[in-house]
């Protein structure tokens, strides 16, 4: 026990005196979690609280196109800038850049007429189906395709964001076309124009959609950027100890301390055990520091407060297993690396890659199918699953066992491979 204690003390002293290493392990992730959470929170607020500037070039000017503009205004997502129908495509591009507009919509000439003809055609077909002779319908008019509305967008606009805008546009267009069909039907049946109040009550009677997060514990706490980001970047920080731990191992190999220890009446696996205990302690300290920031600092800087899971035992067990996995990864990188540069370079880059495929940087649901398979080999993915089960789904220890089992298997594999490698290098 005395040997183990002196080894833990030795590693702790080396760690404390490594100021750069401490910065990488604590300052960097703290900075990262604050910056990422702030950015994502502001993006969230931008989408939900602010309106997107939209430039409309209405080259049609008819009633249908006016209705489309009204519908776009009503969606509430856009801040519709004053229309200018005289702009050509080139001028439109220049205007977008000048006014810093990300999206512009061009309603083509003939849009209203085409929509009207299409509506009358649809209404006529509907009346024919019902066996009603249209009084004064104009259903016999030939119908062509409605010329497409064009959406110009700045190439920096993210794809997912562009799809949201496109969805909103289609919704507005659908509303306009439905209104025309309704008008045509009413006109054909009653030989009169549909009143505004009836039109409003027919077209605007959409039912509300309630959004409820499904939690395992039945609670309906709405997840926010903090609940997503703090656990995710804590895991990233834990695995980033690979830089410090692997260089520590390489330094011991290169300095000959490994060899010296081999001449002493002890087993080097005990040295590795001491190293693991010390660094698991570091990962737990990271958890405490970053979670404390989420609880105490975030509300002070305008970010949502971190709500800890109700199952404390689950949180401690998950943190311990994640920390142990990160430490095992650091050990194996150190065992295989021949120089400190190799350990630092490979260690840092590999953690970023594992974070990317593990769902830390890009959400798992947004990944292509092929990467989702690859994701399962990333220990960071299983760590994230376990934390999300606790933080977002209100799960308990029994609910995270499914995620902890792969982590334990990964830990055992990393440890066994490290020991085999050390044996082959005559170091144990």
């Amino acid at each position, binding site marked *: 026990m005395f040997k183990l204690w002196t*080894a833990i003390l030795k590693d702790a002293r080396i760690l404390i005196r490594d100021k750069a290493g401490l910065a990488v392990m604590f300052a960097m992730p703290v900075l990262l979690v604050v910056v990422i959470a702030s950015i994502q929170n502001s993006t969230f607020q931008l989408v939900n609280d602010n309106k997107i500037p939209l430039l409309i070039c209405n080259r049609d000017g008819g009633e249908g196109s006016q209705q489309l503009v009204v519908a776009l205004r009503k969606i509430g997502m856009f801040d519709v800038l004053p229309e200018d129908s005289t702009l050509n495509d080139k001028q439109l591009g220049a205007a977008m850049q000048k006014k810093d507009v990300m999206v512009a919509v061009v309603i083509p000439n003939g849009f209203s007429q085409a929509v009207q003809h299409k509506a009358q055609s649809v209404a006529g077909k509907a009346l024919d189906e019902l066996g009603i002779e249209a009084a004064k319908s104009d259903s016999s008019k030939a119908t062509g395709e409605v010329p497409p509305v064009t959406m110009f967008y700045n190439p920096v606009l993210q794809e997912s964001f562009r799809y949201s805008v496109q969805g909103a546009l289609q919704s507005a267009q659908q509303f306009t076309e439905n209104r025309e069909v309704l008008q045509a039907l009413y006109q054909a049946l009653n030989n009169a124009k549909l009143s505004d109040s009836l039109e409003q009550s027919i077209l605007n009677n959409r039912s509300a959609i309630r959004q409820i997060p499904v939690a395992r514990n039945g609670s309906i706490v709405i997840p926010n950027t903090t609940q997503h980001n703090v656990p995710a970047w804590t895991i990233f920080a834990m695995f980033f100890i690979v830089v410090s731990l692997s260089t520590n191992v390489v330094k011991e190999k290169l*300095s000959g301390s490994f060899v010296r220890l081999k001449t*002493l009446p002890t087993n080097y696996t005990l040295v590795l055990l001491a190293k693991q205990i010390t660094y698991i302690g570091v990962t737990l300290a990271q958890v405490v520091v970053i979670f404390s920031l989420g609880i105490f600092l975030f509300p002070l800087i305008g970010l949502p407060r971190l709500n800890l899971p109700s199952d404390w035992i689950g949180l401690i067990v998950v943190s311990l297993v994640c920390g142990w996995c990160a430490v095992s990864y650091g050990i194996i990188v150190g065992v295989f690396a021949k120089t400190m540069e190799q350990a630092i370079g490979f260690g840092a880059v590999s953690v970023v890659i594992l974070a990317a495929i593990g769902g830390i940087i890009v959400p798992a649901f947004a990944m292509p199918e092929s990467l989702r398979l690859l994701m399962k080999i990333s220990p960071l993915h299983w760590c994230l699953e376990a934390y999300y089960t606790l933080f977002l789904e209100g799960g308990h220890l029994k609910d995270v066992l499914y995620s902890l089992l792969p982590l334990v298997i990964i830990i055992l594999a990393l440890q066994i491979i490290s020991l085999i490698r050390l044996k082959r290098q005559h170091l144990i």
Partner: protein
Amino acid sequence: MSLALHIQHLHFRYAENTGVIFDDFNLEIAKGERFGLLGPNGAGKTTLINLMTGVLKADKGKIDLMGKDIRTDEKEVKRMFGFVPQFYSFYQELSPVENLEFFGAWAGLNKQEIKQRTDELLEVLGLTSVRDKAVSKFSGGMKGRVNLAIGVIHKPSLLFLDEPTTGVDVQTRHAIVEYLKELNKTGTTLVYTSHLMSEAENLCTKVALMDAGKLIVHNDLNALLTSHPQGGLEGLFLKLTGKSYRDS
């Protein structure tokens, strides 16, 4: 004659498809000797030390230290010998006291024994004034003395020294050699390798010259110097191993 070290029919190579380093190698070192293991680069000195200290495992043959087999009585044997490697094999971020505390514990000493030996060694080796400073800031000579102190903290009966004065100044070299002589007087057997023939002449009572994994000469130092009066140990060394470079 009571033996401190007895190597019988040693056979070793690093891997299956590599050359044989030792083939039926034999060596005896008596207790209380100051034994110099000399040879050019690539002669196999460091490999032999690694085999004698259990860092490497022999393919065949038997190595007994203080009458115990290093394979079967590994833990017991490792308590009896000390090792001072060629390089500064300790933690440069730590102070001499912290290094001695760690290596002392791992050599099997308790807290009280470590404290007592640390104070003694730092005093003898002139490191008391820097006992709590990080070794990384030390000169080569001071690091060499820390390296030596770690090797002898548990008062070994047999001490292996692999070029212990490499990179140290003349004063430190002198101090180390004198300390080793004093240590030998208390009964510690020394097994020492070096490229410095004058230092070997000063320290050793018996020497073995080896090349390409084989012993060329193995005799009392005085007997060797008497039989080769001209050029001393260095002259004999060059005569037996040649003057061509050993860059392997």
